[in-house]
């Protein structure tokens, strides 16, 4: 008679999903609560990583390699994003001497209808 083996926490898909959701929520909270543009950038990175974790956990669950390739592509896109975002921060800081993300309203369109 086979004894039922106790399933460990690290064996459950749900624990990985829960961790990923907590990290995603932390990233989201960082985006909505902080004004510092660097923290906003890091929160975006954290959210990308949480999504990566869900991909890899589901890939292990289905014993498929494809989600790992997708996670790799997400990492490459994050690297591309880093280059553009950081150079944008450098330009913005040079011109405005501030790291406040509210100064991004300089990107808004001028209302030409009222002259």
């Amino acid at each position, binding site marked *: 008679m086979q004894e039922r083996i106790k399933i460990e926490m690290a064996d459950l898909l*749900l624990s*990985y999903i829960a961790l990923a*959701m907590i990290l995603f929520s932390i990233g989201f909270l960082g985006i909505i609560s902080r004004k*510092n543009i660097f923290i906003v950038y*890091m929160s975006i*990175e954290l959210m990308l990583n949480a999504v990566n974790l869900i991909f890899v956990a589901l890939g292990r669950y289905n014993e498929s390699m494809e989600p*790992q390739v997708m996670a790799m592509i997400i990492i490459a896109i*994050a690297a*591309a994003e880093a280059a553009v975002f950081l150079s944008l*921060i450098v330009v913005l800081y040079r011109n405005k001497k501030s790291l406040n993300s509210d100064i991004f309203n300089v990107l808004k369109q001028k209302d030409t209808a009222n002259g």
Partner: protein
Amino acid sequence: MVDIIFLGLAIFAIGGGFGMILFSQPMHSAISLIVTLISLGGIFALLSAPFLFMVQIILYAGAIITLLLFIIMFLNIRDDELPDEPNKNITIIIGAILLIPFNILILKAFNTFPEKSMNILGKDFGSIHSFGMELFNKWLVPFELISMLLLASLVGAVVYARKDKNRDG
């Protein structure tokens, strides 16, 4: 044993994430983020993705966050230039309460999946060889498109960072 490793890595990851959004200095936040990313790399290794574990440490902790730290040091920000965030803590608390239903929804959806052991697979699941075969057999076109994307972002970064000659100052 695996349980202890998983719990330790999860605590480090969550602690690093909270440190990242709570520190006021961007430098401290970036170092907290490195803790989170390395812990996530360890969790990738637990999920039998050794190649992604390597990529996570080399590319994320080694390249992207180093670039970020370099930019933070390069700008040489003084304390009085940091934006003041008077509503930081209250926004975090209210936002966390509002996010709970969303998280419960996702977890309930995943709870319907049948239970299955997720112990570490041996052989070449996730190894460089099988990863490369997967990448170059099924994902060749996205791989080539990524090279175009990286080239475009490289050109974009150079265009942004160029000195504007028309405007003085």
